[in-house]
């Protein structure tokens, strides 16, 4: 069994703590994701899925509980350490692709490498081109996001999330904004990268059809995990 990439215990998240409008949205969450896992997070709107994903993605701080990233406690880490950990360990795919519109598809995929190594190198360029080819966008790599369809943009976002071979990719409803055909297409890509590269995925989805294609389904309701079971494929 692969070691855990992330391990959260007793995680709580309260917004506006200590004020009359304090709101606890996560209550004692225990979750871990191991290397190579292909898991999804389901639950109704307002159940705390995005908040949990943001906490796992080190974009927000937990109010209580412990969080180990690759065995290292990270819940109390400062902004610089969390930023470095995001760059080195995690990849993100958002619902609305969130590409940088001023940069071409190729440049978007090379952006994590530029952050990590400080320069565009031939090796990164080749890696980015290979990833874009793998998502079927060889011919569109020099186009800017506004020139691409929604499905194509999301495929670029998937390629970008994988650019630095992260241990875990966090995907927040990556197919939520796509038609069924494109959604299947993008989901298939995630699955393929999971199988070929061994990258772990934690995918937030509302779509039970896609959830059924994951190895593990974690169900969140009212800020509590109410179900966490592997699925037979």
């Amino acid at each position, binding site marked *: 069994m692969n070691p855990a990439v992330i391990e959260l215990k007793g995680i709580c998240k309260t917004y506006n703590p200590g004020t009359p409008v304090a709101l606890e949205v996560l209550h004692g969450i225990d979750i871990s994701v191991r290397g190579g896992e292909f898991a999804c997070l389901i639950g109704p709107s307002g159940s705390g899925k995005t908040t949990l994903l943001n906490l796992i993605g080190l974009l927000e701080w937990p109010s209580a509980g412990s969080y180990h990233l690759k065995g290292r406690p990270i819940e109390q880490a400062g902004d610089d350490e969390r930023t470095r950990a995001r760059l080195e360990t995690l990849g993100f795919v958002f619902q609305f692709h969130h590409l940088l519109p001023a940069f071409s598809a190729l440049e978007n995929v090379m952006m994590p490498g530029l*952050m990590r190594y400080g320069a565009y190198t031939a090796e990164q360029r080749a890696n980015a081109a290979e990833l874009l080819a793998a998502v079927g966008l060889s011919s569109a790599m020099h186009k800017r996001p506004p020139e691409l369809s929604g499905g194509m943009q999301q495929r670029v976002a998937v390629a970008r999330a994988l650019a630095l071979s992260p241990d875990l990719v966090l995907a927040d409803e990556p197919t939520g904004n796509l038609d069924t055909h494109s959604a299947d297409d993008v989901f298939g890509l995630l699955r393929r990268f999971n199988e070929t590269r061994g990258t772990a995925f934690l995918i937030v989805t509302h779509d039970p059809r896609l959830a059924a294609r994951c190895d593990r389904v974690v169900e969140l309701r009212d800020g509590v995990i109410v179900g966490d079971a592997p699925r037979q494929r």
Partner: protein
Amino acid sequence: MMRFEWAVALRFLWEGGMQTVLIIAGATVGISVIVFISGFLTDLQRDLIRRTLGVQPGIIVRPAEEVARPLRGGAGAGSIEQVQARAQRLRSVDQWQALQAELEAMRGIRAVSPVAAGPGLVTRGDVNKSVTITGIVPERYAAVTRLDEKIVAGDLRLNPGDTVIGTDLARDLGVELGDKVRLSTPTSAGDAYLVRGIYDLGQRNLNRAYAYVTLPTAQALLNLPGGVSSVELAVEDLFGAEALAARLQARTPHEVESWMKANSQLRTALNNQTVMTLLVRFFLALVVAIGVASVLIVSVVQKTREIGILRAMGASRGRILRVFLLQGVLIGAVGALLGSACGYLLTSVMSNVLRGDDGAPLFTAVFNPELYFYTVLGATVLGLVSAVMPARRAAHLDPAQAIRL
């Protein structure tokens, strides 16, 4: 590790399109006006001083004033209640040849000219006019006062029997080039002198004030054998004349006076002008800074989601800060380079357009590399400072919130 910052800053500016063009244009206009005012003021003041001072030197060295030294009695003698000031005779600067040699060797002094000047009369027929008879060594005097450039008829080549007078005096006397006038002083009946040249200093009273003769002629007329009444100096830095005069005063027993002290009103007017233009330049720089800052603040708002994405992907706060600081620096530097070019062009054009009453250019444009260097440096720093607030805002955006927007 700066490639990321450069790549993102340049792309953000490029993507800004018309917004970027307009702010660079604004910075260019502001900086070109700053350059124009700075260059124009320097050139104008230099020319104004040259015109106003006429033939006054940068520094003049004269014999110290004679003072009455009352002889006191022994013990018990009462104090003297009133001491009459001594009348100031025309005297020579002691050891002026040695002083001249010493001054010529000093740094900051461009030229030295001995002058023997005193009161006299110029007469033609039954017309008498009082003048200052000024004995000079023409080439030395020209080096100090540029009198040779103000000769409008004849020339400054003085022979022992020659004189050079001003246009208005010539008109008063009804003389022309080649005519003869009589020069006399209280101590000499004088002689007839040929009008060799006529000068025009641009001021009527100055054009009636001097009759130039050779130094030995003046020494004879003024009963100052072998002596000079002053040693006049041209200085390298006109505005450093007062400091240089103070240094000279400390090492010589003579009286040393700079043009700044002798023309305190002109100096005050120039100082006020400098302060006013400094204020104008300061407010222009402030307007440019506010413009750059406001455009970058708008850019931060427009780019909130992109900043969030970059932060989520692993860009540190420091990197986001540098992306926006770099944008400020680039706007400042490009605006400064374009503004300097436009400012120089404007100065050159205006130096041909603005003319005085005599039709001569009001000022001469001089290329001052120092001005342009400091303008570009200053504007770049200004761009950096203007970008601090927007950059800090961008760096402190919460990535999770920024992405949700």
